[in-house]
């Protein structure tokens, strides 16, 4: 079940990857509880089950790289550097939120950390990512942009247009398809002409591959290789990450379109449990230590919720702010 531990991974790296995934899991669980308690409303799309993807990817990037995503992006925003207190406060619509209560779940942004949203139009982030890569190339930098998208988004026209421009102009954009098998309630096989979504790159003569998204070290190693090549020679890449969301499309989706057996099958390959086995096997952490970390993480998320609860709401007049720039 557990992958062979990579000798090149230092214990500190493994511990960090584990604690990050654990934190994201407990954070999203707390977000869900807050929603069910009525602390906020609107849309909320949880990343539970997909933590290995954002941790594996983020650890392969550097601060000057950019990340852009769709709407399932709380953890990606935190991974890129946005304070989780600001993320939860944003969900609660507070002024201390990442974007002052103006955006909500789907629209977290940070100029400082180069996290470019948080977008609600499926596939809309794809040409924007190509444009960021265009600017990177224009300035002759060796940064890259990661553009997360879902399996559903690979059928949107803008995705194809972006891929074509990226491939034609050798733009340093890494398109990462988080294929969690379902576009909302639709098994992607029902609406897609190919089984392997990475093959869409063939239409553009673009490099592509797929990787198991339930193993953080595999994701990290794979993405690191892609990114290193991209910095030396700017060109786009299409990576399909095979992953799974344990919950519904959003917090209001009971996911009746999936069987309990299917969900359980993926939970048996849970990325956090898998890495826990690695840590124990390599004697980096004991079962008691893992339990203690979990307890600490839960306390941390509770403190984050206290912060968000206490944070003041925006002024009504804030609704007039930032319509136009000076």
């Amino acid at each position, binding site marked *: 079940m557990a992958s062979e531990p990579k000798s090149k991974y230092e214990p500190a790296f493994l511990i960090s990857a584990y604690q990050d995934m654990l934190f994201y899991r407990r954070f999203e669980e707390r977000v869900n509880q807050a929603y069910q308690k009525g602390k906020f409303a609107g849309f909320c799309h949880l990343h539970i089950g997909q933590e290995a993807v954002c941790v594996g990817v983020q650890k392969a990037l550097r601060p000057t790289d950019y990340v852009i995503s769709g709407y399932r992006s709380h953890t990606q925003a935190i991974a890129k550097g946005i304070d989780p207190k600001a993320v939860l406060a944003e969900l609660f619509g507070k002024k201390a939120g990442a974007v002052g209560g103006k955006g909500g779940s789907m629209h977290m*942004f940070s100029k400082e950390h180069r996290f*470019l949203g948080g977008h609600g139009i499926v596939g809309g982030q794809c040409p924007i990512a190509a444009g960021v890569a265009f600017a990177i190339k*224009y300035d002759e930098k060796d940064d890259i942009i990661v553009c997360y998208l879902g399996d559903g988004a690979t059928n949107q026209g803008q995705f194809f247009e972006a891929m*074509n421009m990226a491939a034609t102009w050798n733009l340093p954009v890494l398109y990462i398809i988080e294929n969690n098998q379902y576009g909302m309630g639709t098994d992607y096989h029902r609406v897609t002409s190919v089984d392997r979504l990475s093959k869409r790159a063939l239409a553009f003569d673009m490099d592509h591959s797929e990787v198991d998204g339930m193993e953080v070290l595999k994701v990290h190693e794979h993405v690191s290789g892609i990114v290193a090549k991209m910095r030396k020679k700017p060109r786009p890449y299409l990576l399909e990450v095979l992953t799974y969301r344990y919950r519904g499309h959003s917090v209001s989706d009971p996911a009746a379109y999936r069987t309990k057996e299917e969900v359980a099958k993926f939970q048996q390959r849970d990325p956090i449990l898998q890495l826990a086995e690695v840590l124990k096997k390599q004697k980096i952490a004991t079962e008691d230590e893992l339990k203690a970390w979990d307890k600490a993480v839960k306390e941390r998320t509770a403190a984050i919720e206290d912060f968000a609860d206490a944070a003041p709401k925006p002024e009504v007049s804030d609704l007039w702010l*930032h*319509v136009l*720039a000076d």
Partner: protein
Amino acid sequence: MALIQFREALGQAMAEEMARDDRIFLLGEEVAQYNGAYKVSKGLLDRFGAKRVIDSPISEAGFAGLGVGAAMAGLRPIIEMMTWNFGLQGFDQIINHAAKMLYMSNGQFNIPIVFRGPNGAAHMLGSQHSQNFDAMLTNVPGMKVISPATPYDAKGLLKSAIRDNNPVIFLESEMMYALKGEVPDEEYLIPIGVGDIKRPGNDVTLIAWNKMLHVAVDAAKELEAQGIDAEVLDPRTLQPLDEALIFASVRKTHRLVIIDEGWDFAATSAQIADRVQRECFDDLDAPVVRVNSLFVPMPYAEELEAAVLPSVGRIVQAVKDVLYVGN
């Protein structure tokens, strides 16, 4: 002063701004090697090179979005839509993304982008190549909309649009690209949101913009021969509207006819009429009358197209209606 074509005025504006600021680039279909479908970007590739003047694939949604991304990462794109009929494909990126990014990001990401191209009818191009998008584009918070009528206005306003730190929609016209007008030799800018009285008068205010401005001016000449002194007001910018100029004119003449190439339902002229009736109610001696395109898809045949579009005849009749004079 120099007498130049509208297209040259636009080309000069872009060249001057691109020479001044190397963050600016131009991208669109046929803008580089073909020198522009309507020759607006003629010479820019030779002068600035392929890094800054880029021929795009036929992907309006894609390259509008590419512009948004480039702007987020610090560049200042000019995105040309070959016509705004095709630009409709890019409305998701313009309206859902460009216009909202600053607001959603709470002020972190402004989008200094210009989306420009010809708008409205040309000559016998049929219904898919003749649409006027003023109403749809002015109805979006988070972006500015400019629609000039003369080479002088076009150059000064395009320079301002390029320097503006917001998304700016710049609406031109195939029918005006050859129009000649005087343009100063020295550099000048026209502020966005400021209109212009093209012909002062006292009996009635005619508001018109883009190519309708010239139809309104022709109507004013016809009216003058009939003893009616029309003031022609060109707002030049549609969003934001120069309401102060409009209200001052209506308070002087007490009568308003708006000539708007768009279809009448929920048109930009409907917005102007509503603002005038709200703020100048006691100054009006007649209802506000609008002369719009007839509410049909644009037909191909020449006479049919001419009957759809606002004409001098229809404007003159509208003026007589608000003056309560006989035919």
